[in-house]
């Protein structure tokens, strides 16, 4: 180990003091944001158009300061969660491959039944798996494949539910908006987003509701909207002048939500949302939700849902109540999502074992493989013990 922790002591102390001094400044900004939330609560309609142009949250018909308390939780409903993880291709490894593993849990509230768990690993090793238009599939390209695998898994599980079971909520960890950051070609972006939207269509057809859950969100779309409101909706000024709330996350504003309550619904200003999702009826909405039980500090999550779920009172209530019910099982995070993550997670020893399996399979097939020199020396230097145990 070569990180000299003793040399960081001073820096860590300074960091602690600096962060503490920011607290008061932060509190003042929260107060300002909440004042604006109340002051401009009824100006949603005037703000709708300029909000989109500066990537601020787009108001819906609900006043900005809306607080909706926790709806009644159905006695019986099904909560399906999916999460994925991946092994990136390693050009220094014995062979070039990637792995996507999707874990999922079907939890039937009030049934007294054992939840159903699934884990689906998929290995990518063929040329067509590994390359897209000459580029190695890693980073964001692999993230997109994982997101597609997650939503497909949810759609499959929703389709497997008994017909007419409308009391089903399907939830992914993260966002419902496919982030195709590395995709510059429009047609390839369209193909991928369309594949994602096809799965949302499948879920809609089953009668289930779908949502995405974001823990400790850092988005600043609502605070940007509030700043815009303070400028009487002047998008030009909002784009040019410094926004005092620029780094204040939306969740700080909504920490005033009572336990179990949600904020107003907003529409995502994401370009991909407006370019592809809206036309298919999946316009992504979101709200903030306080998951904490009574007498506990607020725990704010961001929930994303398509228009057909946001505009259907029953589906919206089911998503709201279902996520809170799930989160309160363990404390402040949906139980089924925690389990789906556990089922998807690929541990270090599992990665090593898979590498050994691949090496063995290649040897059986008569192919001799070896780590790159760089990878080989890492195995030597990183497993030694050069200091006292911490």
């Amino acid at each position, binding site marked *: 180990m070569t990180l000299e922790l003793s040399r960081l002591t001073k820096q860590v102390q300074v960091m602690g003091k600096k962060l503490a001094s920011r607290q008061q400044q932060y509190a003042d900004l929260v107060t300002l944001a909440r004042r604006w939330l109340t002051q401009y609560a009824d100006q949603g309609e005037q703000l709708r158009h300029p909000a989109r142009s500066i990537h601020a949250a787009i108001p819906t018909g609900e006043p900005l300061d809306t607080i909706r308390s926790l709806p009644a939780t159905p006695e019986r409903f099904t909560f399906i969660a999916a999460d994925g993880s991946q092994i990136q291709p390693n050009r220094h490894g014995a062979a070039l491959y990637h792995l996507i593993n999707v874990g999922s849990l079907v939890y*039937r509230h009030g049934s007294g039944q054992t939840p159903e768990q699934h884990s689906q690993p998929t290995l990518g090793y063929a040329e067509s798996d590994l390359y897209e238009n000459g580029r190695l599939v890693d980073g964001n390209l692999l993230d997109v494949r994982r997101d597609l695998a997650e939503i497909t898994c949810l759609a499959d599980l929703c389709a497997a539910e008994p017909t007419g079971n409308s009391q089903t909520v399907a939830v992914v960890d993260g966002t419902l908006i496919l982030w195709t950051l590395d995709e510059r070609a429009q047609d390839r972006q369209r193909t991928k987003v369309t594949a994602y939207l096809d799965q949302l269509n499948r879920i809609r057809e089953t009668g289930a509701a779908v949502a995405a859950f974001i823990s400790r969100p850092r988005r600043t779309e609502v605070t940007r909207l509030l700043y815009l409101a303070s400028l009487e909706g002047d998008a030009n000024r909002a784009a040019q002048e410094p926004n005092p709330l620029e780094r204040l996350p939306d969740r700080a504003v909504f920490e005033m939500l009572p336990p179990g309550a949600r904020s107003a619904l907003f529409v995502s200003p994401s370009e991909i949302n407006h370019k592809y999702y809206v036309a298919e009826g999946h316009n992504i909405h979101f709200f903030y939700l306080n998951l904490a039980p009574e007498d506990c500090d607020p725990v704010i999550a961001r929930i994303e849902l398509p228009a057909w779920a946001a505009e259907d009172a029953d589906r919206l209530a089911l998503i709201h109540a279902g996520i809170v019910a799930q989160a309160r099982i363990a404390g402040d995070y949906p139980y089924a999502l925690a389990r789906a993550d556990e089922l998807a997670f690929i541990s270090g020893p599992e990665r090593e074992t898979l590498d050994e399996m691949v090496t063995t399979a290649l040897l059986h097939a008569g192919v001799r493989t070896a780590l790159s020199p760089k990878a080989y020396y890492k195995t030597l230097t990183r497993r030694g013990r050069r200091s006292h145990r911490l």
Partner: protein
Amino acid sequence: MSNGNLKVGRVLRASTRGFVIGCRVMTPNIPAFGSFVRADGLTPQGTIYGLIYDVSVEDDPFVRQFISADPPDEVVLDQRENRQIPIEVSVLAVGCGDDGAISHCLPAQPPVTLDWLYQCNAEQVRAFTARFGYFRLVLEAREVPADELLAASLRAGAACRPERERETFLVKAGRELARLLAGDPVRLEGLLRRLQNEGAI
């Protein structure tokens, strides 16, 4: 040898003095402390006999979340049946068999990893406890609660016999204990008291 009997679990680690097996779920069928179990030996007709001296349930931080949370039934079932919280059963080796002949001694070789461990049926327990040579192995084992284990094994041995034979069996066992622990009357008294408290004698 291992035909049609209740499987307890597979061997995780082993030595000639004993072994540890892992199982997924605790059920009423999982044998309790003091039960006789057996694993296949390395020869075709070979058997290794043991006594369960410890059953431990492992935990993890996720399970600990629910200790004071009064979890719903679905969560309890999920944690018990889906999440593989390991249950480890420790076994003291007390004998071995070869083609039906039982010796009360340590096995020449331990079972190997992932061998099945089976619960002994009544006939096998009767055959093993027909003699008391294994008492010394238990009494001398330092890593186990020896006296409790021996008393539990005798209760198991008595329970596998017809009611009319139980008292005779226990009296014989008591005499053997008196012989082995002649130099340690305090320990002998404690052991006999354990059997009396359970109504075995």
